[in-house]
């Protein structure tokens, strides 16, 4: 019953999406361009999408194992949080979440339209077209409400994608993939990524609408700016949560492995970072009109490409959970997006104005262009490296791999140049920066960088890359801090106190200072990446009960073992006491564990971490030899700074959002003034 209701909801949403395309295009070409014209199909899209998700959750929470998705991805013993999360954790559920978010975003965009807003109505039609794809997928290849038609050995062994015919239900479901149900972060990491991925549909839709309507000015950028930044924040948060999950769960101590699917999330983020920077140039200096269209099309295409990589199984990856017809469908969408958008772009090229030229390479816009060069170059290199094995195999039949050593090698010089460019770019004035003004604004930061690098050497760091990154990060942070104080001193000219002057400086340009905060975050995370990779200590010790071993500045003691049975898994672990190097002062008790999932025949080693200000001590069970346990002991200096730097980047994005909240026009502006909005 619930399968039929759910499927009906999907069909309603699909009809709504089709209706949104038709009415959106019609309304955007009509005389009065009234947003009310798309209300009915939009409500059908949103209502149908929400209902489908709710029915799926009801089916999961009531253990309706006659629905194949429920039987395959949840079980009676699944803890509540993971039960709820299994509504979006697997392929079909993730498509539902995608569709629901897209419907929600369409509704939010619609609420800001006004009479005569043809651009916005056109954007809604584009969002409707994208919705047609996702709800069409749900109605066919990725139907979450397909029923189970055969049960063998207690599990659903055959299913029908249409919810008609006689359904049979297994006594219990299989449950979620153990890796996904092993840590609470897995409930939050995918929704964050989806919010980011789906969010980029909005600026893409405004861009396509502007192209189709031959309105290549900056209005579409102004209208979608907040969405771009919001999607960028969500995608960054999703990537950060994924790294944190990997660190807490995967047991080898890393947070980034250049896995194809990690790359797939990074790629649109890099393109979006380039887009956000180049949008500043167009909004401020009317340059790069064509380039901004290209960047948003590329960003959106990369979100589809990322989904394709994750869901098609075309590249072997720890993330490639599922394979089905969804892969070819996504490839088809990717082709339509790329060729359709670029075709439209070619047709409208004559309306896109030729760009005014750069006054000087040494200027704010010059450095923003350098950002664009670095970001697109890095994105291309990551994309090329990720797909290189596929290309080589297609052309020569040889099997090759491209992994971490390659990406690390290109990321290091890229990162160093990026830090240098951020430092100078942050303080460069618009149009042309004379050498004297650049020197005046950056020499304080240069000194901070040199002192920071020297301090790291005094503290015992002997790794050249680490010292270089510390120096450049010090330069970035010092330069930005100096510039802030410099501006605040000017603001103090009246009788303001320092806090007032700082607040008014930052408050007057939240977009700029939010960006600078994000730059500080990039500098911090660069330092943390350098220390946790170049200065890490990795060793393995074999201990019997009561035995101790000294590792670096610590001493570990194997105290005792424990075992407990939980629903769906057996937990075996050891209690390890962590002391200082003299084995006298107790610092923590850690419990690295092995989680055994009998239904899957899988054992997952789950590490335990003691986080400190100086370093993290990371323990994982490498193996058990009779009475002895082999422990891998990993020490990562400044690991917390990876997370803190990441949070700083997010905070910067959130601050930058503030500007457009204040600057948003409450009522439609007259045509001749619309260009001035949001500036």
């Amino acid at each position, binding site marked *: 019953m619930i399968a039929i209701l759910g499927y009906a909801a999907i069909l309603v949403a699909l009809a709504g999406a089709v209706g949104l395309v038709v009415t959106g295009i019609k309304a955007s070409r009509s005389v009065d361009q009234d947003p009310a014209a798309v209300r009915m199909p939009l409500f059908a899209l949103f209502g149908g999408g929400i209902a489908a998700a709710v029915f799926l959750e009801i089916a999961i929470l009531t253990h309706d194992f006659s629905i194949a998705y429920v039987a395959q991805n949840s079980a009676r013993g699944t803890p509540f949080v993971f039960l709820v999360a299994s509504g979006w954790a697997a392929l079909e559920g993730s498509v539902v979440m995608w569709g629901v978010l897209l419907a929600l975003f369409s509704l939010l965009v619609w609420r800001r339209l006004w009479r005569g807003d043809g651009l916005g109505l056109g954007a809604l039609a584009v969002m409707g077209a994208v919705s047609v794809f996702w709800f069409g997928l749900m109605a066919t290849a990725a139907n979450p409400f397909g029923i189970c038609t055969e049960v063998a050995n207690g599990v659903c062994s055959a299913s029908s994608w249409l919810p008609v015919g006689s359904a049979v239900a297994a006594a219990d479901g299989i449950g979620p993939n153990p890796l996904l149900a092993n840590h609470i972060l897995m409930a939050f990491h995918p929704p964050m990524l989806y919010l980011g991925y789906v969010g980029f549909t909005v600026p893409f839709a405004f861009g396509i609408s502007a192209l189709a309507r031959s309105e290549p000015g900056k209005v579409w950028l102004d209208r979608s700016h907040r969405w771009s930044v919001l999607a960028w924040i969500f995608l960054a948060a999703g990537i950060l949560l994924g790294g944190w999950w990997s660190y807490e769960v995967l047991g080898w101590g890393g947070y980034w492995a250049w896995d194809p699917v990690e790359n797939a999330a990074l790629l649109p983020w890099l393109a979006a970072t380039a887009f956000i920077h180049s949008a500043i140039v167009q909004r401020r200096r009317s340059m790069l009109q064509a380039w901004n269209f290209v960047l948003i099309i590329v960003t959106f295409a990369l979100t589809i490409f990322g989904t394709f990589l994750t869901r098609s199984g075309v590249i072997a*990856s720890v993330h490639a959970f599922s394979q089905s017809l969804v892969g070819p469908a996504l490839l088809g969408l990717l082709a339509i997006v790329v060729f359709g958008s670029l075709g439209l772009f070619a047709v409208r090229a004559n309306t896109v104005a030729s760009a005014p030229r750069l006054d000087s390479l040494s200027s704010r816009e010059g450095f923003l*262009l350098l950002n664009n060069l670095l970001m697109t170059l890095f994105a*291309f290199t990551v994309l090329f490296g990720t797909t290189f094995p596929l290309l080589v195999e297609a052309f020569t039949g040889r099997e090759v791999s491209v992994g971490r050593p390659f990406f690390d*090698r290109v990321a290091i010089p890229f990162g160093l140049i990026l830090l240098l460019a951020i430092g100078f770019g942050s303080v460069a004035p618009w149009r*042309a920066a004379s050498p004297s003004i650049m020197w005046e604004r950056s020499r304080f930061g240069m000194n901070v960088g040199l002192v920071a690098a020297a301090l790291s*050497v005094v503290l015992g760091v*002997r790794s050249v890359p680490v010292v270089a990154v510390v120096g450049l990060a010090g330069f970035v942070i010092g330069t930005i801090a100096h510039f802030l104080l410099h501006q605040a001193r000017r603001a103090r000219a009246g009788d303001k106190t320092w806090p007032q002057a700082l607040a008014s400086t930052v408050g007057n340009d939240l977009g700029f200072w939010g960006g600078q905060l994000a730059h500080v975050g990039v500098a911090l995370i660069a330092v943390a990446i350098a220390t946790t990779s170049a200065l890490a200590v990795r060793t393995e010790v074999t201990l019997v009960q009561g035995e101790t071993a000294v590792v670096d500045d610590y001493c570990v003691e194997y105290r005792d073992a424990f075992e407990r049975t939980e629903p769906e898994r057996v937990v075996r672990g050891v209690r390890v006491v962590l002391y200082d190097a003299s084995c006298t002062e107790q610092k923590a008790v850690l419990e690295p564990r092995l989680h055994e999932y009998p239904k899957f025949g899988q054992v997952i080693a789950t590490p335990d971490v003691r986080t400190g200000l100086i370093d993290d001590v990371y323990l994982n069970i490498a193996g058990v030899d009779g009475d002895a346990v082999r422990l891998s002991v990993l020490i990562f200096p400044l690991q917390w700074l990876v997370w803190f730097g990441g949070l700083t980047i997010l905070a910067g994005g959130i601050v930058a959002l503030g500007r457009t909240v204040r600057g948003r026009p409450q009522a439609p502006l007259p045509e001749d003034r619309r260009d001035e909005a949001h500036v």
Partner: protein
Amino acid sequence: MSDRSRTLAWLVVPVIALVVIAIGLRPSEAEPDAEARAYALGVSLKCPICAGESIASSQTDLAEDLRGLIADEIAAGSTDEQIRAMFVASYGEQVLLEPPSSGWGIALWAAPLLLAVGGGIAIYGLRRRESVVVER
């Protein structure tokens, strides 16, 4: 602080810092220790049965055994190249996570470099060629 001592500080601080850095980072002949070498090798080799994981990061039994093999080979005095060649002989070229920079492998490095040059030229071409207005 007087203007003169301030100027002096601007000169002295970076010089001291540079000297400290230069002394601290002078090249040393220290060999990388065996564990660091084993880890670096493990990172550069693909775990043959895993989906996209390296020998260093995989938790499978095979990866565990191969980590042991690498440690044994290092202890026996093999060079990194010898150990890599041994893995290629057993598991084929795809065991290397960084393709050799020869033959078709050149394309992997050449394509980004070409793009970098092209992008640089494009930005340089955007420059206005007539006189520059300076604005602070």
